[in-house]
């Protein structure tokens, strides 16, 4: 029994990695099998793999999703700058740090949700939710988040 189980083990875990890398690349699952083995084979051509992923991303991702991704990068950079400042210059006043950094984290999470709900590939998972409905939710939640942050920074 244990032997069989061990043998069965690699398959699901491989599937799991595939899936996660797919979401990261933000596109069709089909791309993953190509990327994963090459990474295992030779670390030497990492650059080739990355280039592959990049080209695939540029080619296959819808432009609307790319706009979201740019916004995500922007939020990540703003958040990173604030965190870096906190490390370098100390956390006084701490509530200002929390609300400033929290605003970026919250906004990032909300935007990711929007991206998941509006990506065409995930349509089957949210059959009831149209992209416009998702956007309306996103706007409401973002405004609430901003209100909290403005309130908390004093």
């Amino acid at each position: 029994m244990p032997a069989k189980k061990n043998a069965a083990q690699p398959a699901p875990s491989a599937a799991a990695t595939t899936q996660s890398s797919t979401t990261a690349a933000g596109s069709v699952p089909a791309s993953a099998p190509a990327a994963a083995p090459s990474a295992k084979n030779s670390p030497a051509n990492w650059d080739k793999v990355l280039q592959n992923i990049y080209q695939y991303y540029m080619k296959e991702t819808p432009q609307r999703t790319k706009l979201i991704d740019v916004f995500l990068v922007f939020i990540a950079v703003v958040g990173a700058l604030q965190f870096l400042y906190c490390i370098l210059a100390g956390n006084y006043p701490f509530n200002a740090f929390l609300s400033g950094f929290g605003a970026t984290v919250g906004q990032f999470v909300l935007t990711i949700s929007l991206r998941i709900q509006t990506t065409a590939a995930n349509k089957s998972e949210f059959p009831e939710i149209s992209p416009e409905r998702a956007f309306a939710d996103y706007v409401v939640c973002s405004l609430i988040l901003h209100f909290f942050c403005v309130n908390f920074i004093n």
Partner: protein
Amino acid sequence: MRFSVASTLLALASIASAASSWTFSDGTVQVTSKAGNDAVAKFSADDRVQNTLTLGHQDKLKVTLTTKEGSKAKRPHQAFLVVKEASGLEAPFPLTVKESGKGTVEITQKDLPVQLLLSQEPLEASLVLGSFGSTKGSVTPVFDFTVKLDPATAVPSYEKPLRYGKLAEIHHIFRADPKNPPRIVSVAFSLAVLATIPALFIGWFAIGGNFAHVQKALSSAPISHVVFFGSIVAMEGVFFLYYTKWNLFQTLPAIGAVGVAAFLSGTKALGEVQRRRLAGER
């Protein structure tokens, strides 16, 4: 109110001594020591012991003498050996005097009060003789001795008795105020953060983002689009006013009003967006 032996002595010295007075003879002080530091010294009324004696923790100090009234050996009523510390504190040790005037007293460390044991200076022993009647009493300093405590046992501690009085001032020590980092660092980071905004727009335009559909949207649903986007901006404006000058009770009605406008116009505006999507224009 303090009468020291010395001042009394001075007062006595100034009196012309017509009458006879109490004195003594054959004064001997003897330290018997288990450690072998035995010492014997003789003293008389005019001649005190010159060198300082040492009283160890197992030693016994014994004083013997013969008291005299004038020149006749006699027993006085008061015959004390008074041991005095530099600060003026005194401890009296009465002598056991026989009818013949022979008197003795023995002192060990156990007999001395703690304050005297802890004295840094040598202790001064004086002999006080006095009795009723007209014969004058006498106070004679006879010898000095130091106390050598047992190094093996703890030093006896003397606790000052509690006395009401002023106490030392106490000033609360405040926690230090939090310190701001250098202003230049804050300014630099603020500018860096703000600089990401133009970078964001540049990024969008670089991958082909644009606002080209504004006209289309405005032409098909002008009011709802203006009101919807305007109310989102207005909501952020309300937040800004809340941050700068409004209080919560001014803010909440404003949020409510803007929120209703956004909800009503939003359904229409997003409906238009959906029509565009279904028409394949997104």
